């Protein structure tokens, strides 16, 4: 995305009690500021932003389908967070680095990851840049400056902190953004990452999706702090509380703190208030812990609807364009899934590669042993 000039953004207010936002729940601008002016986003960029959100939603829907069809073993959804996820990614520069969390992948096309790669990861085939080594929802790609996340919640934060230290050491004008849910702020890794980022003034943005639940545990039982953004005080830097269903507000805040971090290494914490529209994962049953009505109410306020409404309000979008976009993406996604699947499963030997840079003697032995058993097995099936 073409960036506005560096350092041109007005400064958002940190530590507010109410989330920063431009768009109200109907997607109409509120207050006296024109979000286009504050964010520097052109009309074309606004449309791009929306398109990327729609694509993320559609990738996500296909993820669910693949699980239902038994072609993927597991899935975890971005729905409800597309606006904040896409906008914050778009607010970055190509030289920046991204530490995703498990809800991030469906939006990573924003960083240039292809749909084939994304579905390769979900399907665990050779189309996955990580060779099918992890469960779905663990996409990473070095060439797109996306780290490979692990499953432990919040672990990425502390590693991202180290990556930010490296950027500063190497005098690269780039930031690291580390994503997580509000639950991740309870883990020790959050504390370590924040404290080191404050002490060393690192170009690190910790971006928290406060989607109000960590699986079944509500936000109020996660921490007693008034806001999550507030926690940044304990580490000597600023926290921003933003409406995560307003992509423009998220873009503004992220872009501002990223520019600042690139210039003078100021870390920042962002709390984006969102809501998870789906169950926690394909293995969850959310009716056990939250009322259907609550979910339905949030479906009315979520980012896609708001953003579309705003574009329509500006005269930049209509039903026809929406239809065309869906048709385009449906085709692209279908093709990508097919290609990803055709890449096929990894070779047996892949189990023993890249444990180390150079495979030691016993792993070579084990690889031969595994091969022998696999062949016997096939033999006996024949």
């Amino acid at each position, binding site marked *: 995305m073409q960036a506005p000039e560096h350092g041109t953004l007005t400064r958002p207010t940190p530590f507010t009690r109410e989330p920063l936002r431009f768009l109200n729940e109907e997607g109409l601008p509120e207050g006296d500021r024109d979000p286009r002016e504050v964010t520097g986003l052109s009309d074309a960029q606004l449309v791009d932003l929306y398109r990327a959100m729609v694509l993320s939603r559609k990738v996500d829907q296909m993820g669910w389908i693949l699980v239902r069809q038994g072609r993927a073993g597991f899935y975890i959804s971005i729905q409800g967070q597309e606006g904040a996820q896409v906008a914050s990614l778009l607010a970055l520069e190509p030289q920046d680095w991204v530490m995703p969390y498990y809800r991030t992948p469906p939006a990573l096309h924003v960083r240039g990851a292809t749909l084939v790669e994304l579905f390769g990861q979900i399907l665990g085939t050779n189309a996955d840049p990580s060779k099918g080594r992890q469960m779905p929802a663990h996409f990473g790609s070095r060439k797109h400056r996306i780290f490979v996340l692990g499953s432990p919640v919040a672990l990425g934060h502390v590693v991202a902190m180290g990556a930010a230290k490296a950027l500063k050491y190497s005098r690269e004008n780039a930031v690291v953004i580390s994503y997580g849910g509000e639950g991740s702020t309870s883990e020790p890794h959050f504390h370590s990452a924040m404290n080191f980022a404050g002490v060393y003034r690192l170009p690190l943005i910790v971006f928290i999706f406060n989607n109000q639940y960590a699986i079944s545990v509500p936000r109020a039982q996660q921490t007693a702090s008034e806001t999550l953004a507030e926690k940044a005080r304990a580490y000597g830097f600023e926290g921003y509380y933003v409406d995560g269903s307003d992509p423009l507000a998220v873009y503004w805040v992220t872009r501002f703190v990223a520019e600042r971090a690139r210039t003078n290494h100021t870390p920042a914490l962002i709390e984006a208030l969102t809501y998870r529209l789906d169950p926690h994962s394909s293995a969850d049953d959310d009716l056990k*812990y939250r009322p259907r009505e609550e979910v339905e109410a949030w479906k009315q306020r979520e980012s896609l609807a708001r953003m579309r409404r705003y574009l329509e309000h500006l005269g930049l979008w209509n039903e026809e364009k929406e239809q065309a976009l869906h048709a385009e993406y449906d085709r692209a996604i279908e093709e990508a899934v097919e290609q990803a699947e055709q890449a096929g499963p990894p070779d047996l030997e892949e189990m023993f590669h890249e444990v180390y840079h150079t495979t030691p003697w016993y792993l070579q032995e084990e690889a031969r042993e595994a091969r022998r058993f696999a062949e016997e097995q096939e033999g006996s099936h024949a």
Partner: protein
Amino acid sequence: MPEMTLVQALRDALAVEMARDDRVVVFGEDVGRRGGVFTVTEGLQERFGEERVYDTPLDENGILGMAAGMALMGLRPVAEIQFVDFLWPGFDVVISDIAKERFRSGGQYGVPLVIRSPYGGGVKGGLYHSQSPEAIFAHIPGLKVVIPATPSEAKGLLISAIRDEDPVVFLEPKKIYFGIKEEVPEGEYTIPLGQARVVQEGSDVTIVSYGALLHEVLRANETLKQEGISAEILDLRTILPFDGPTLLESVAKTGRIVIVVEAPRILSVASELAAFVAERAVDYLDGPIVRVTGWDTPFPYALEPHYLPNVRRIVHGVRRALGLVP
């Protein structure tokens, strides 16, 4: 006796102990309202209230610290770690505090608590929902480590673990949480910790295993029987302190031993048992001590079917122990 899955048997054990002893308190991520992601604690909060069954913030270190402190004060906390792969942020509490509390205080304090956690592969969970780290815990003096293999075993061992005066890491084979049903004794039912179970007597070879893999061993035994091989099958049950005497007795009888575990081979529990036998019973041994284990790699996702020991590999291991193959 009612038939139960492993999950039901664990739930039953918790309910029995909670009803009997109000020092027993259950907590962890999603164990309250949600009843646990594997439903082990389902219904317990309704029955025993939010003070005795409650959700925690997403922080294993806090969970384990809370367990340690509560046990120190005389309660009997049963803390759930959602997957044992996620215990490590709180490992310092386990290795530096819980395991050493009784010793360092000269017996002034103890921390009778249970850390319950699902472990092991077989659920397509990839690197972080499949690991079997029991060997790490079993290297730490002061801990007990228990792994049940069937529903009734799970109940009896969990109740014993809760009543034990020492801290117990109780690892549950998630692969067989729901797949196996068996009759489980009602009410209070205990199985002493520290004793292996002789699942089947035999004369040609001793096979030791535990947890989900024990069932793979039993399947392999069908093949062995057909081949006329008489296996003595031991369920280790307690990994630490392990039942050395029963092991030695069996090897003295059979002269051969195969140890089957899921974890990577190097420094696995199979290694300890092998070393133990090689030190004490070398005179009885008529063949190599064979370890059938996971490979020495991180746990794979797409290739999981090739990772876990299976019937073929177990049978092959037995043949090696018997000198039938090189």
